[in-house]
């Protein structure tokens, strides 16, 4: 053994010892037995586990279910299916294919890479792989933990212990995330539903279902060999949509009974149920949303799980329902986004064209011509808005009919004027104020004093006057800004933009865009003129490379042209879509004309194409499908079906007036969002991850450990079992339990006494000290303050250890007392100062602090006398008193420092007026100073109190928790121990009592929670957080 080893061995002693005991544990289990006994034993262990730890069993079971379902089944299943779909190129609808939840990120990854969104694709793939690994591992390890198989369990022995808990907790977090995602989908769907829930559409859908149900003839589908073929048949011959066909094709067709009561019938019925269910959910959305959602979720989810474990004929269909529901939700969300995009784009184009049609106006805005001032910011915008009241006021108050509420004004501004949000809010506030003041009694006075609005004086004046006052006010502010920003004004995008917002009421992003274009023109002018052969427009957009050397007006004109072109193209496309939708519905309105379709599809389609030039190839493809279905289904059913399809297409045509032309969100834009719209994510993610990993998970584990048998064994080296043995040891009826419980009660009492004393004495004395130093006539305030600050500037453990030495048995104080002869004359003996062995008094030292490891100034034998001082001493009264006093020494400067500022803020009038009323200083302190300081520092007082309950440092550094006098005191506790010090000692004892420490920790938490709850219920500042801002 070399030097290093020897040095370290003392530190690792206890761990080494535990390793050995773990090894012997293992050997005991591995003794060979007849198989029947070992089987019975493992069965018994299994039963015992269920019996002892229902908690543990649930925990493991949930882990196993989630791990296996998601990891092995869903993960691998989706991986292969996803790979198949993705590689075959059918990934266009990958969102719709994504019935396996986020597990099929694989598909999304592949398709993203295919469409050259490489970064996103790689991220999706990586996420998928990590997810699969995690879930697979969880499931696998959970099997081991369920004790179903001892061999498996054995193989995890070395990686078990706390890590099992860590993993379990993370699995639960994943499971929670799954539910959260699910609910967020539901919410998004509702929004969509409001937009696109057309009764006609729903009726058409129901009728189509009816037609299919009564004409179910799926022999051809049943005969098909591959899923792909089946899907094709369903789509082309039976009128299924792409998605429906996809899911229907997954059904077990070989065992299919094609009558309406069979599986196909069940599928159709379930689809109908789903439509009805959806309707019901959303009709009562406002009142019952949550309940219905919950019921729907639990219902569908339960069946979804059931389906996987009991794959019977009846339950299979539910999975389809679940899948269909998910698909629908995702599709809705997709369309919703596109719909919004479309509106935003068209509106943007129109406003942009108007703006750019006169580049001079932008130049005016930039240069401030005609205003004579350089204005910037929201104030400038307000000046413009207030200067032209005809434009805004008329718009805002038209049709208000006397209802001058903020909301009404807001709504009207919203509808009539396209304006920036915060500007609108401010404007409506001003208007509202003006109207309110106009109706009140006249107050008089100057409306504008020292550059600020005097609201009192506004009362009773005409509205126009008040508006002018506000205008003057904002103009003043703008002038102040203007001086500062004059130099920047002409070439700054934000400044031009803010003026555009003010003058034209255009949206912020547009104003910025226009300003950029204008500035680009300015810059282009500066470059040497050159003839470049580049085309001016590329895909209706301005080619920036062709701009060099052109004049400003020309550049702006080019942009205007580009926006006109783009708007026109947009309109054209829009019109074309509407026309083709109408044409489709016209054709389907008279399907009999095309019933001779069979056999000569191509000819018919060609004829249709010539007849209706507005039909696109896409439409023709679907018409082919519909007509083929009609031909196949025969006259009656076909008619019903086609009528339904017709109505459906009418509904679509109606919707197609706002076709979905969205652009994918580019990756770089998404990244930029993290600096703006999604800044909360950027800011919060790191602290949250840190807290979860290093605070929350350990805390949860330590709560769980209270229910294990992790005590005394090789800590962390083996798997523990769920058990209540910790609780039994701590609070059971046996001897250990009794000692433990009495110790607990004693320490709890002392902890509470200590916390109250430490908190309130420090608080009051600190305030008194601050008052003394802050007294007006006291000189050298800074010096006094610094003297006290020095003591808290020194690290606390140094001052505490220093105090410990001063008050120790051979410290200066006891030495001095000894020199003065205190320990030999009768006084100190009468007072019980010194050491007792039995009833015999021995002069040594006064027990200021009695430490655990220091010399025992404590009676070695029980004292049986009646001297009250000695009795107090055996009850650790003196050490406790010393600790409280030292804590005052340590704590007062903190209070003094933090309350000084608050005390200076108390208005002097309060003291003066109370003095006149005859209050003395004492009265002033309790009736003015204390309430004021309490109001401000009340919440922090609670934090201090809880901090003192858990004040490890003071007690530990002064006394190590104190001397243990035996009796009903647990060996690891001492006279002056707090609960937290005891916890520390227990966890450092040999063997460490981890489960007991966790139990005590939970109790401390309960105490702190109890006090916090009481205080927070009375604190307004917590409830009305927003009002304080």
């Amino acid at each position, binding site marked *: 053994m070399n030097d290093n080893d020897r*040095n*370290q061995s*003392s*530190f690792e002693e206890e761990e080494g010892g535990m390793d050995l005991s773990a090894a012997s544990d293992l050997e005991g289990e591995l003794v060979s037995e007849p198989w029947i006994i070992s089987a019975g034993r493992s069965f018994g262990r299994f039963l015992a586990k269920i019996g002892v730890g229902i908690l543990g069993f649930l925990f493991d079971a949930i882990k196993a279910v989630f791990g296996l379902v998601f990891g092995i089944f869903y993960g691998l299943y989706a991986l292969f299916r996803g790979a198949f779909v993705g590689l075959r190129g059918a990934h266009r609808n990958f969102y719709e294919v994504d019935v396996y939840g986020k597990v099929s990120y694989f598909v999304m990854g592949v398709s993203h890479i295919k469409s050259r969104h490489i970064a996103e694709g790689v991220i999706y793939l990586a996420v998928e792989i990590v997810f699969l690994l995690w879930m697979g591992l969880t499931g696998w390890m959970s099997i081991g933990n369920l004790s179903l198989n001892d061999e498996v369990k054995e193989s995890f022995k070395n990686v078990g212990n706390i890590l099992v808990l860590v993993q379990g907790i993370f699995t639960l977090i994943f499971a929670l995330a799954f539910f959260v995602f699910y609910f967020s989908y539901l919410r998004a769907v509702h929004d969509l539903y409001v937009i696109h829930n057309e009764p006609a559409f729903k009726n058409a859908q129901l009728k189509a279902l009816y037609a299919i149900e009564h004409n179910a003839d799926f022999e051809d589908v049943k005969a098909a060999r591959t899923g792909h073929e089946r899907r094709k048949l369903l789509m082309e011959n039976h009128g299924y949509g792409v998605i429906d066909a996809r899911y229907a094709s997954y059904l077990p067709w070989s065992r299919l009974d094609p009558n309406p009561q069979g599986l196909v019938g069940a599928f159709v019925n379930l689809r109908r149920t789903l439509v009805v269910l959806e309707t019901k959910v959303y009709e009562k959305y406002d009142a019952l949303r949550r309940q219905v959602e919950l019921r729907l979720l639990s219902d569908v989810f339960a069946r979804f799980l059931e389906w996987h474990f009991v794959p019977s004929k009846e339950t299979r269909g539910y999975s389809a329902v679940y899948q269909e529901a998910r698909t629908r939700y995702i599709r809705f969300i997709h369309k919703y986004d596109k719909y919004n995009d479309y509106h935003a784009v068209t509106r943007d184009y129109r406003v942009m064209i108007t703006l750019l049609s006169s580049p001079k106006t932008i130049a005016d805005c930039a240069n401030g011509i005609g205003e004579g001032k350089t204005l910037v*910011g*929201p104030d400038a915008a307000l000046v413009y808005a207030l200067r032209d009241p005809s434009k805004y006021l008329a718009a805002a108050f038209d049709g208000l009919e006397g209802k001058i509420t903020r909301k009404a004004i807001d709504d009207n501004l919203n509808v009539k004027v396209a304006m*920036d949000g*915060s500007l609108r809010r401010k404007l409506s506030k001003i208007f509202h104020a003006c109207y309110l003041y106009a109706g009140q009694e006249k107050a008089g006075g100057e409306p504008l004093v020292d550059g600020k609005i005097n609201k009192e004086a506004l009362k009773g004046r005409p509205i126009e006057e008040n508006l002018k006052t506000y205008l003057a006010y904002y103009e003043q502010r703008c002038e102040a800004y203007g001086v500062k920003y004059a130099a920047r004004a002409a070439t700054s995008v934000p400044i031009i933009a803010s003026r555009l917002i003010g003058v034209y009421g255009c949206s*912020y992003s547009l104003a910025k865009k226009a300003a950029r274009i204008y500035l680009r023109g300015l810059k282009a002018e500066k470059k040497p003129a050159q003839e470049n052969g580049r085309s001016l427009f590329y895909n209706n957009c301005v080619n920036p490379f062709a701009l060099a050397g052109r004049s400003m007006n020309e550049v702006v004109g080019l942009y205007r042209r580009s926006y006109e072109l783009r708007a026109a193209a947009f309109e054209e496309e829009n019109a074309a879509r509407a026309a083709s939708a109408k044409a489709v519905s016209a054709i389907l309105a008279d399907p009999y004309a095309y019933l001779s379709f069979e056999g000569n599809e191509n000819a018919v389609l060609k004829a249709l194409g010539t007849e209706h030039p507005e039909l696109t190839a896409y439409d023709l493809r679907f018409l082919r499908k519909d007509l083929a279905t009609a031909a196949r289904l025969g006259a009656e059913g076909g008619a019903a079906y086609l009528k339904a399809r017709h109505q459906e297409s009418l509904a679509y045509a109606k919707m197609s007036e706002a076709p979905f032309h969205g652009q994918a969100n580019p990756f770089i834009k998404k990244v930029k969002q993290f*600096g703006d719209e999604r*800044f*909360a994510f950027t*800011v*919060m993610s*790191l*602290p*949250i991850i840190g*807290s979860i990993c*290093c*605070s*929350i998970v*350990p*805390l949860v584990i*330590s709560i769980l450990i209270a229910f294990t048998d992790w005590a005394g064994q090789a*800590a*962390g080296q083996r798997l523990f079992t769920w058990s209540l043995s910790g609780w039994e040891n701590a609070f059971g009826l046996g001897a250990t339990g009794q000692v433990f419980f009495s110790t607990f009660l004693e320490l709890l009492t002392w902890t509470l006494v200590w916390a109250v004393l430490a908190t309130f004495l420090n608080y009051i004395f600190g305030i008194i000290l601050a008052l003394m*130093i802050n*007294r007006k*006539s006291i000189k050298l305030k800074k010096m006094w303050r610094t*003297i006290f*600050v*020095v*003591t*808290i*500037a*020194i*690290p606390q453990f*140094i001052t505490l*250890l*220093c105090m410990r*030495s001063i008050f120790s048995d051979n*410290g*200066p104080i006891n030495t001095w007392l000894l020199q003065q002869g205190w320990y030999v004359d009768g006084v100190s003996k009468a007072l019980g100062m010194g050491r007792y062995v039995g009833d015999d008094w021995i002069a040594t030292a006064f027990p200021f602090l009695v430490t655990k490891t220091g010399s025992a100034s404590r009676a070695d034998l029980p004292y049986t006398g009646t001297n009250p001082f000695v009795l107090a001493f055996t009850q650790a009264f003196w050490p406790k008193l010393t600790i409280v006093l030292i804590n005052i*020494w340590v704590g007062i400067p903190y209070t003094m*420092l*933090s309350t000084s*500022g608050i005390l200076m803020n108390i208005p002097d009038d309060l003291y003066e007026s109370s003095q006149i009323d005859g209050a003395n200083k004492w009265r002033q302190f309790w009736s003015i100073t204390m309430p004021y300081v309490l109001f*401000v520092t009340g919440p*922090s007082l609670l*934090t201090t109190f*809880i901090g003192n309950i*858990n004040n*490890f*440092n003071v007690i530990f550094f002064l006394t190590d928790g104190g001397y243990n006098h035996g009796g009903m005191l647990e060996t690891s506790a001492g006279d002056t121990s707090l609960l937290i010090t005891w*916890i520390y000692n227990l966890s450092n004892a040999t063997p460490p009592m981890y489960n007991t420490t*966790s139990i005590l920790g939970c109790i*401390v*938490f309960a105490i702190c929670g109890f006090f916090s709850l009481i205080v927070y219920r009375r604190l307004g*500042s917590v409830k009305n957080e927003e009002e304080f*801002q």
Partner: protein
Amino acid sequence: MNTKRIVGDAIIYLILAVMSVIWLAPIAWLVLQSFGVSGGQADKMLFIPSTFGFQNYEGLFINKFWNGSAFSTKFERAYALFPYTMPSGEVLLGSFLNTLIVALGTMVLSTLLTLMTAYGLSRLRFRGRQLIMRICLIMGMFPGFLGVMILYWMFRGLGVPMSLFTLILVYSAGAGAGYYIAKGFFDTISKQIDEAAMIDGATRFQIFYKITLPLAKPIVVYQALTAFMGPWGEYITANYFIRGQAQYMTVAPQLYAIITGTIDASDYWGWFCAASVIIAIPVSILFVFMQKYYVSGVTGGSVKG
């Protein structure tokens, strides 16, 4: 009236003077003791040491015990305050530098995390915000020591090597939960400034970086100061994480071990005093000079609860 005030003043001056003596005497004693020559228990009994000298300080720097006779390997390894080369050739940083490294790392990391959390919770509105605040509140009531214990076993289980960096990580990872004071301060900064900046085209990141942070300078300094001072007096976590690895010893467990006689306290008393003075000097100077920020941080942040 006037005489009454003069009498009052006199009483207060008297009280303040007495209190000053009480507050300064222990510190003066510690400083005097560090200059004592006998080094062991003998001087500890006196207020003023019998003879003065610099042996204790020399002992710190050359890392040999002052009288040379009680030279102990264990002492060297675990209780070096300054960099020292072991007989085996291994160079130890010593607890002072260890603590300095940990304190600086913690200062940077945990200040960043705290400010980010506080800004997010004060200025931005997002889903789950209330939940996060509630969880932080509840977390604060658990004795933090339990978490540290579990974290230690977690790190052991995962095979994370114990080092100064681990200590930094443990100190700062959960710092976001202590956002209260910084959030209170951010709440007092007017939101209208943000709105104006937004109209001028600033993104939220720019608002945070260019507007809010400069305005919140006191709270930034306050957070950095408290984060820096934390590791200097922190005992439990350091003790738990570095046991068995004395080369990562920090000052608090080291001085505690000396005074409680894990090694022979009676011989090392002078060493302890000198080490305390050396450790206290930089931290105390920093605190006294940054006092202004400390006060404005505490009062500014706590005004709104």
